[in-house]
């Protein structure tokens, strides 16, 4: 039996995560993500899981990976300054292929910035925050209900592809309260990492998707290292082996992009103007689109739910369509995803940009005004 519950976005993340099998949380208090730690400290012991408040953001990320190595589904949550501190260990999880989930409830930056104000300034950091070439999956919810269901999706993708997944929230959805239709737990699809069933496999031997199987902790003895390593998991200085490793790591996300990417599309059939938005900004964009359509404007909305990998194939199809004359990118920063849009769209159509860095939200009125601007 499903049930409707009034929840805050941050709270919904925890409930979704637990439904997906989260049994370990390590974190450090930071606004506007702290409710995720608080709720985890209440809920995890109730389901036999473990919560620990660590001494800093770096150790939180480390403890999450340590727990995940033993097979636990593990999560941490933070905001901008803490997300910066976690980056080195996120890279460690990428190269060692340890599944885990990192929630970043974005706030206004740079540095301490406006700690209680919304922003989407960490989008490029989510993509490139840790050093070196590495795969990334980042998913951005726009409602409390999505906080619940996309938290589940983050865990499922991290298990399926053995990679850290970022739930890229913003203060708008983190602190929003809405009703969520919580399904019966039997109706929730939960994905677990594929196990190596015998000792004959090398620990980093990948399947056709490029994803290695998982050895159960305590059965056999394995080595895990952040150094470049071969299929046995031991370090190597070989350029050839390193090349193969990095190409496989990137490939397992790139080659499975169709499975990983989710988008939301509204009124694109006749749209001459398309509003491109994601996360909390979607809410203002949707209001503006509805209002504009009521006034006779042919406008639609394109929203990457999966921000990374970016849905570039689909955006290209839209921008190269005959009807589309203009894409308005609305995002809560100085212009980050608009760079992706420009790279993909090229000369297909005009690109307009609405950005904001003052800590206030982008309003439907501001987007509407841009829609109405003469082309």
């Amino acid at each position, binding site marked *: 039996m499903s049930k409707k519950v009034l929840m805050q976005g941050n709270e919904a993340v925890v409930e979704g995560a637990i439904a997906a099998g989260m049994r370990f949380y390590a974190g450090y208090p930071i606004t506007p993500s702290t409710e995720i730690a608080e709720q985890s400290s209440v809920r995890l012991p109730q389901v036999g899981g473990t919560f620990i408040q660590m001494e800093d953001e770096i150790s939180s990320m480390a403890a999450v990976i340590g727990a995940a190595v033993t097979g636990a589904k593990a999560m941490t949550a933070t905001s901008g300054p803490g997300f910066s501190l976690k980056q080195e260990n996120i890279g460690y999880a990428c190269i060692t292929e340890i599944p885990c989930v990192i929630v970043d409830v974005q706030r206004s930056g740079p540095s301490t910035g406006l700690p209680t104000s919304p922003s989407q300034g960490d989008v490029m950091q989510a993509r490139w925050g840790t050093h070196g070439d590495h795969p990334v999956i980042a998913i951005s919810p726009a409602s409390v209900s999505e906080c619940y269901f996309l938290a589940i999706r983050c865990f499922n993708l991290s298990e399926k592809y053995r990679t850290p997944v970022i739930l890229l929230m913003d203060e708008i959805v983190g602190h929003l309260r809405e009703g969520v239709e919580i399904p019966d737990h039997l109706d929730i699809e939960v994905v677990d990492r594929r196990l190596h069933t015998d000792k004959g496999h090398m620990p980093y031997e990948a399947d056709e998707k490029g994803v290695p199987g998982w050895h159960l902790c305590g059965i056999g003895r394995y*080595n895990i290292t952040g150094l470049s390593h071969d299929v046995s998991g031991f370090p190597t200085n070989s350029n050839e082996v390193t090349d193969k490793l990095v190409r496989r790591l990137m490939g397992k996300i790139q080659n499975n992009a169709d499975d990983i990417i989710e988008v939301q599309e509204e009124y694109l059939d006749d749209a001459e103007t398309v509003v491109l938005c994601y996360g909390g900004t979607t809410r203002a964009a949707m209001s503006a689109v509805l209002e504009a359509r009521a006034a006779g404007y042919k406008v639609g909305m394109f929203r990457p739910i999966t921000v990374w990998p970016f849905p570039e194939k689909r955006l290209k199809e839209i921008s190269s369509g005959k009807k589309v004359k203009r894409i308005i990118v609305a995002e809560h920063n100085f212009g980050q995803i608009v760079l992706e849009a420009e790279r993909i769209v090229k000369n297909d159509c005009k690109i307009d940009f609405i950005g904001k860095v003052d800590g206030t939200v982008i309003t439907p009125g501001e987007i509407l005004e841009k829609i109405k601007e003469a082309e």
Partner: protein
Amino acid sequence: MPSKLIEKYIREDHLPHIWCPGCGHGILMRDVAEAVSELDLDQEKVFLISGIGCSSRAAGYMDFNTLHTTHGRAIAFAEGVKLARPDLNVLVIAGDGDIAAIGGNHLIHAARRNIDITVVVFNNDIYGMTGGQFSPTTPTGDFATTAPYGNIDRPFDIAKLAEASGATYTARGTAYHAQLTIKLIKEGILHRGFSLIECASVCPTYYGRKNKKGGSVELMTWQKDNCVLSEKAAKMTKEELEGKLVIGKLSETDLPEYTDEYKKIIDKARGYHG
């Protein structure tokens, strides 16, 4: 029986190791293997975690479940492992820079929690892997590649730091005093709570050379001639202990262990909410 020890606990196909001739780390790694062997621990239930540096390479050579992590963070990774799987024997091998500089925060907080992890510090008083820079344990006045005019920093006493932070077992061994060091590592593993065994290693390549203190033989002879057992040191004056290194068990107390306490939290949470 060293050959059987190597056969069982060292991944021979990953040798030779990267340590320089005369380095003390090999002896200390053997001490860890000997301690595990004497305690007859299930190898598949031993989780050895290390960070970055010369000593941290031991994880790759030892035949347990091994996790070679990021610089300074071994203890934090180890806490995740231990909390998720309290049944495992969790060991950390770390160097002085790894544990007392970049990882100092994790050391003091893990000690404060009294989580059941055994930390074996291979302390060579220098950053070896990056080529001989001074570390948080390099004595004042000594030379290093980043202290060309002499080190003005005061050194940490890592064992004392751990004890002051709440570690419930602390001890000090050396590369020279192998039998004692094995005994201390065994005690640390058996101790329920956070234990730290600081082991004085030797680095002839950088520390010895930069400070004109000779090679491995001279550095280990210094350990042989200048170490005082803690029982004896307790009866000596401050003046008599000047220039000496106190070895042996330094502290032990019996206090609640973190994962045991968390189990009680789980019981409480489940009781309240049916």
